[in-house]
């Protein structure tokens, strides 16, 4: 029982980290960035390459990969979203162009890395475990949960206490007014993409480490679960995404333990539906849903 709680928190921390980036971009742009999962996947490969080919230790490779993810996010914005800003149907067309970019990135990964599942070399992270009662938690799992929580804290601090954060919130509230007030909207949006994709990239590296597998299609299921998380948490709400991420992780694990593993994925979508039909704004979303 305790072990399952550990499993759930662990899985949930990765969902939360992934969803944070997702919901940040939605909060700012009212757009779902479906290329997020491709960045998630590519960062895992970047970290893998740094570790395997440049022999960098993980504590150095990880931040490098995360920064790479942020930069990749800026590229995504430049290629897929910025050219469409101003178009009347920019939400739907933005969605579609992000799908297109995700497909391109996945194809590139397939071509250059091959379709096989890779894993990080053994011994790259310490192998120790702790016993808490009848549960086993590995050092790696603790670190991952810790990173997820601290990234959430950092993000919240950035949004509340820094100038950048203020500007991001201004653009999220009303881009036109922000521009009038002298905010460089394009640059703020690019920064949001940087932060969002850095988070997504971090989630990717941690996922690859956690489950010993890196493959070009690793983003696909997480992407769909991520949707459930941001809907449950409330679109645009960081704390919501974090809470919902952990909640979904726990829910999935307990579904497997009590009901049966075949329904594991159904839980995410069941929750998605329920929330959309009963309370579309989710747990902590804004009271009035803007025209999406």
């Amino acid at each position, binding site marked *: 029982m305790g072990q399952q709680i550990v499993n759930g928190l662990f899985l949930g921390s990765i969902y939360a980290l992934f969803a944070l980036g997702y919901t940040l971009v939605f909060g700012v742009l009212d757009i779902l960035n479906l290329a997020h999962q491709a960045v998630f996947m590519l960062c895992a490969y970047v970290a893998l390459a740094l570790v395997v080919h440049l022999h960098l230790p993980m504590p150095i490779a990880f931040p490098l990969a995360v920064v790479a993810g942020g930069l990749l996010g800026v590229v995504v914005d430049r290629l897929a979203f910025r050219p469409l800003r101003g178009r009347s149907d920019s939400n739907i067309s933005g969605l579609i162009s992000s799908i297109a970019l995700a497909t391109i990135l996945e194809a590139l990964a397939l071509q250059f890395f091959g379709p096989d599942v890779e894993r990080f070399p053994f011994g790259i992270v310490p192998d120790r475990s702790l016993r808490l009662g009848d549960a086993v938690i590995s050092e790696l799992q603790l670190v991952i949960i810790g990173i997820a929580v601290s990234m959430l804290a950092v993000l919240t601090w950035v949004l509340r206490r820094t100038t950048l954060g203020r500007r991001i919130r201004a653009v999220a509230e009303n881009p036109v007014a922000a521009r009038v007030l002298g905010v460089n909207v394009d640059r703020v949006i690019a920064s949001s993409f940087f932060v969002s994709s850095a988070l997504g990239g971090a989630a990717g590296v941690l996922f690859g480490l956690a489950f010993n597998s890196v493959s070009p299609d690793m983003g696909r299921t997480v992407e769909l679960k991520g949707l459930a998380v941001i809907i449950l948490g409330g679109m645009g709400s960081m704390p919501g995404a974090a809470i919902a991420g952990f909640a979904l992780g726990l829910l999935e694990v307990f579904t497997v333990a009590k009901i049966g593993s075949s*329904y594991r994925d159904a839980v995410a979508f069941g929750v998605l539906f329920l929330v959309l039909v009963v309370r579309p704004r989710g747990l902590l979303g804004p009271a009035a849903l803007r025209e999406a």
Partner: protein
Amino acid sequence: MNGESLRDLWLTYQSTVAFIGLNGLLALSVYTTLSCGQLSLAQAGFMALGSYASAILTLHTSAPFPVVLLAGTLVPAVVAIPLGLPVLRLKGVFLAIATIGFGEVVRIFFVNLDFTNGALGLVAIPQRTGLVAIYLALAGALFILWRIRGSRAGYALEAIREDEPAARTMGIHASAYKLSMVVLGAGFAGLAGALDAHFNFIVAPANYSFGRVVDMLVYAVVGGTTVFYGPVVGAAFLTLLPEVLREVGSRVGLQPGPLRLFVNGLVLLLVILFLPNGIVSLPRRVRRWLETRRAAAHAA
């Protein structure tokens, strides 16, 4: 080209021709909701329902093929009603997400249904679909959409697409129209599913994933969603492209899998950025570009 090599060419590519027809029908099913401004991505789920319903009928009863097809069309159409009512209240992206969720729920439902062998699906379905059936269905769908286009309903749909709140104030029952389009799209997808099941011998949940509906969306968008035949053009183009690419790719030493994916993505990106009204708008664009050049030359 002599007769024999023509025949061989035909046999080799007959499945491609069939897939063009099926993909065209699927693209139209996504288009029906796009035409009134809603992005509904539930079509993979509807297709699955149509495939399974028709396959079950064929395998367990001796129903004639047209009846089987009818069942495949009606089952998803009926399911679309209780799905559509709550979900059409949602705006834009939320509708898209909800419908993606629906598609996944259907897929997982079938993965867990022992009656249909769960994930393994139904196999050895007799091949009752021929090219005639596929293209008749496609023609039928195109006909329906063509009739809607020029009618009062068609204008209402366009008004909804342009500006829904304004349309409502003008007295258009937006909800009823949107629901009808969802139901129509579900019927198209179900029909395509039924035809597909009886062409490919198998029905398995893996065929009805999120990736499938993304493909359908890509066909529709690349072809063009401002005219009713646009999606079919897109489907034909994107179904033929991998076949052409296979030849090119193997000569250049690229893997066929990634190459097809890459080109699909690239074509979609280029279209959405530079040719938002799809391939069908290309002739007009080119003509206009030529005219401006001619005018500039004259002015000079």
